[in-house]
């Protein structure tokens, strides 16, 4: 074997003064052999993305290399001038990014964006460039490449755009492909396809891959070797089988333990519990009117029916566009359904007018996805939690007393009450969001992707909190999620949605063990890492 494609020696990247730590990464040493896939994993803020960007000389201006070297095919990236960097980018290493929707120039045809790469490096004739662009799009598995080559990015789906990005990154057959969270923004089935494509291209061309991700499942799927990063420090590095099978560092162990298992725990016995919430034949279609063109329709919910018992958790799972969030919001009547009935306790709330609905709202509450957008930045935590009870006539001072108790219930200190949202981390804010929902003592909780924006270790804590509160208060929970691992651990029953319809429904354990519908099988098959994390902790 020849020497490594990429070798990073003692790399330290300095953050601007007044950051929460002096270095983005510290003393990193990594090597990638030809044809090898190295996964760099870590949670948000670990500095993993900075490493990827530094290899391409694409660091943000505020971050500066303080020590070390990055040798890419015999050239030290950190010591190259602008012209040297431009020559190296694309030729020695190609890069793909997280957001396929914004990574392509919206006003330029797809093939022109690939052709440009050849032009930038003065390779080939005009005709040859076009021919090669087409060949690359074909190899990237795009349907009807002749037509797509002439298309603009907005005409392509997210998965197709990411394929174009890969075709572009590999245009000059670089020895190294850098992939910065390339599948994070994609649905699970699309993610599986993109991972397979990267894997195939790597085998065929012998390209080494530097893969940055936060997802242990993805790591288990593709890594030859793994490097684990914690707050800018490389805590563990080794062969994939070793790191995943017998992690040495406590942080790695914690990360792996936090990955929810795909095997559901034994079901609870809820047959005797009363039904507290039910939905039948719920319909919702989005229509986009246009003055002269045809009206476009998207069916978001079609004949949705389910019921929820006291103490039960039902998971609504599906990919983006399946209508799962619409159903969640229709249950809250944040979106008005077109037809169907929603029964909360004894009351049919679907027919109520705005004013008549308000007294019933307190019995069904919601936890939102985005911990940064779900709290009003100008209100104190106390104000946020007590606004609900105050709206129902509870005096503010009395509500404040209760808010302190709630804060402790969700694992925060009671003196958080006078502070503002920006003083808290994502996980802490999510706890505040839960406290706000609980302040009204609801019977039903709708959690819309409530843990999706969180790091895996924080996610595990919040899931435990939700389960704990459910046990104590006997809440019924409607848990909307795209993440089958999370659903496996928290849901008693699941409802699988696709294009606005329920395609399968049943006890979680039964559905996971024996999926009847094709789509469910596809979803389960696409979960990265499959059964790799079976040792994870069972339900608390």
């Amino acid at each position, binding site marked *: 074997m020849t020497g490594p494609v990429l070798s990073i020696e003692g790399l330290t990247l300095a953050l601007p003064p007044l950051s929460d730590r002096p270095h983005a990464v510290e003393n990193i040493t990594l090597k990638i052999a030809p044809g090898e896939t190295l996964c760099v994993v870590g949670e948000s803020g670990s500095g993993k993305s900075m490493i990827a960007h530094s290899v391409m000389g694409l660091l943000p201006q505020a971050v500066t290399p303080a020590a070390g070297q990055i040798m890419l095919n015999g050239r030290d990236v950190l010591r190259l001038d602008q012209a040297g960097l431009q020559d190296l980018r694309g030729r020695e290493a190609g890069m793909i990014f997280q957001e396929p929707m914004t990574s392509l120039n919206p006003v330029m045809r797809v093939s022109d964006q690939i052709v440009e790469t050849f032009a930038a490096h003065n390779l080939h004739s005009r005709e040859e460039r076009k021919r090669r662009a087409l060949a690359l799009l074909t190899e990237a598995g795009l349907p009807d490449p002749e037509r797509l080559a002439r298309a*603009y990015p907005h005409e392509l789906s997210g998965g197709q755009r990411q394929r174009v990005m890969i075709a572009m990154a590999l245009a000059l057959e670089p020895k190294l492909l850098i992939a910065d969270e390339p599948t994070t923004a994609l649905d699970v089935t699309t993610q599986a396809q993109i991972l397979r494509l990267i894997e195939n291209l790597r085998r065929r061309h012998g390209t080494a891959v530097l893969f940055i991700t936060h997802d242990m499942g993805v790591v288990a799927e593709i890594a030859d070797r793994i490097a684990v990063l914690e707050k800018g420090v490389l805590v563990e590095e080794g062969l994939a089988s070793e790191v995943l099978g017998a992690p040495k560092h406590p942080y790695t162990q914690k990360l792996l333990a936090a990955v929810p298992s795909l095997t559901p725990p034994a079901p609870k016995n809820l047959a005797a519990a009363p039904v507290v919430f039910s939905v039948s034949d719920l319909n919702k279609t989005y229509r986009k009117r246009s003055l002269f063109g045809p009206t476009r329709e998207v069916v978001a919910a079609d004949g949705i029916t389910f019921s929820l018992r006291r103490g039960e958790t039902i998971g609504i799972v599906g990919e983006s566009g399946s209508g799962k969030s619409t159903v969640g919001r229709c249950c809250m009547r944040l979106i008005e359904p077109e037809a169907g009935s929603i029964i909360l306790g004894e009351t049919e709330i679907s027919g109520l007018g705005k004013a008549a609905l308000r007294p019933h709202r307190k019995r069904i509450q919601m936890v939102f996805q985005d911990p940064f957008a779900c709290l009003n930045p100008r209100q104190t935590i106390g104000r946020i939690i007590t606004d609900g009870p105050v709206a129902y006539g509870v005096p503010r001072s009395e509500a404040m007393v209760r808010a302190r108790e709630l804060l402790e219930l969700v694992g925060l200190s009671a003196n958080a009450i006078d502070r503002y949202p920006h003083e808290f981390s994502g996980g802490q804010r999510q706890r505040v969001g839960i406290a706000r929902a609980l302040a009204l003592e609801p019977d039903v909780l709708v959690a819309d992707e409530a843990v999706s924006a969180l790091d895996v270790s924080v996610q595990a804590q919040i899931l435990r909190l939700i389960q704990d509160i459910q046990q104590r208060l006997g809440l019924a929970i409607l848990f909307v999620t795209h993440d089958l691992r999370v659903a496996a651990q928290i849901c008693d029953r699941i409802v699988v949605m696709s294009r606005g319809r329920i395609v399968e429904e049943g006890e979680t354990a039964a559905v996971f063990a024996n999926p009847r519908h094709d789509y469910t099988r596809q979803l389960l098959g696409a979960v990265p890492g499959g059964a790799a994390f079976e040792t994870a902790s069972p339900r608390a």
Partner: protein
Amino acid sequence: MNLIMFLLGRVAKGVVVLMAIAILNFLLIHAAPGDPAQVMAGQGGAADEELLQQLRVQYGLDKPFLTQLGIYAGSYLQFDLGFSYRQQQSVLSLIMDRLPATLLLTGSAFVISLLVGTLMGMLAARRQGHWSDGAITTVSLMFYATPLFWIALMSQIIFSLKLGWLPNVGYETIGANLSGFARMLDIGRHLILPAMTLGLFFTAVYVRMMRASMLQVAGSDFVKTARAKGLSEGVILRHHIARNAILPVVTLAGLQAGQLVGGAVLTETVFAWPGIGRLMFDALTQRDYPILLGVFFISSALVIGFNILTELVYRIVDPRIGAQG
């Protein structure tokens, strides 16, 4: 097909807007203190009773309010904008005589300011933080804050009265009887000062817009992609940043067209440029209201036409619009 539907839709919308302007004119006439017939006569209250009576019959001023509105708006939509009793000519023909001069002035000011503005904005954004960026943004802010009529007066003193480089006022040299190319050259020399002063304000507007737009686009993901492909900074700037940054500037430039007409009133007043702006100023001093209202109506029609034009351009430069149509 798509394009024809789009044009039909826009023209229909334009007609609705023009109708609304006719109604607005009508309401203004009735909101004026005194007899509406006096306003329509436009002689500052000095009109004789015979004329007033004729106007009352013509516009049905003794009929119910809504009928009056119908008569007035109806005549406007047939482009009958009334009659200037002072000039003894129909308002429409007065405006049409003056229109070419205004189109020449505003058109050249628009082209100059858009070209210079976007180029300077690009330069400033590319050199962000450099002294040249500071100089460009400072100068554009200064022109943005200076009253247009004052710049016009000062450039008149300096370049024409003191230095004698360019003609002082007017559209062409009176009595020179030039023709063909020589006449074009003469008009061109007269055009330089008014077009530059009118253009300066808008140049300042476009510089600021283009700079801000460039800086915003420069932070996009696709610019990072372009860099990762090994493209040179010049190519990235031209093909990726500028091409996307100019889109919002085109939209805003279209919206600014209305202000261009307003600026023309001031510029034409100072430079005695025989366009509809100067016509408006003269009508103003003589209280000739039919002309004022007519100029307002026609300049609105111009702006609507211009807006349709910019939207067409926008559809050509931005591939995303057609698909959403």
